[in-house]
């Protein structure tokens, strides 16, 4: 990074979305909710892509498991929702989570609100996992994974029943 661009990134030349992301990052580092850890290294390299580690909650089917989420933000954030997928070697086996990491969760698309945050999305995903009663892939997993767009936000989701 050249000195000039460093100076620019410092000033109000920072975009509104970057400012909000920065505020969220600081809050997340300062008071991380239980079982949620932001990978500070990845964020340090690129404020638009966060890796977040979440732990399976005790007393649920996912207890003892560790998952990694990837958040991608565009410059319309928070007016536009982030792209959120599971990544890494351990994709949770869950009726709303495809084996390619895509998550079927309405707040990530249709029900997105700028009042939501990285933290609240993480907690929603965590509670989605926690409320699961049987570990299995979505019924259309094979077909979806073969045909879907790389970006889960491009999928026209027919939302599964929340009570799974």
């Amino acid at each position, binding site marked *: 990074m050249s000195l000039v661009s460093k100076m620019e990134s410092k000033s*109000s030349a920072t*975009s*509104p979305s970057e*400012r*909000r992301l920065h*505020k*969220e990052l600081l809050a997340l580092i300062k008071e991380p909710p239980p079982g949620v850890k932001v990978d500070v290294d990845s964020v340090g390299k690129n404020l638009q892509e966060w890796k977040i580690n979440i732990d399976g909650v005790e007393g649920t089917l996912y207890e003892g498991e560790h998952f990694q989420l990837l958040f991608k933000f565009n410059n*319309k954030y*928070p*007016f*536009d929702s982030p792209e959120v997928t599971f990544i890494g070697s351990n994709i949770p086996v869950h009726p709303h989570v495809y084996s390619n990491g895509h998550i079927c969760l309405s707040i990530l698309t249709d*029900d997105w*609100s*700028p*009042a*939501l*945050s990285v933290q609240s999305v993480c907690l929603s995903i965590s509670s989605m996992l926690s409320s699961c009663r049987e570990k299995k892939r979505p019924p259309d997993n094979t077909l979806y994974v073969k045909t879907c767009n790389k970006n889960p936000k491009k999928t026209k989701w027919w939302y599964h029943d929340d009570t799974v």
Partner: protein
Amino acid sequence: MKVKIKSWMGVATWRWIANDENCGICRMSFENCCPECSLPGDDCPLVWGACSHCFHMHCIVKWLNSQPNSQQCPMCRQNWKFNIQ
């Protein structure tokens, strides 16, 4: 002895009468301006919805404009209506 106050120059800070400290959209303090503005207060006012949630006017308008189909409060998802006081 009698003490008479001839004049008093005091110092105060202004604050919005709102039930929250930060704007739920940009996360900035209400006493600060939204990220698009440089001056707080008169130049970057708050607005209230019928649901009683409030935001920087510029933030909520930007949100509503980005939602062609529904006009919901980002906080409570009720239909957004400006509360004209």
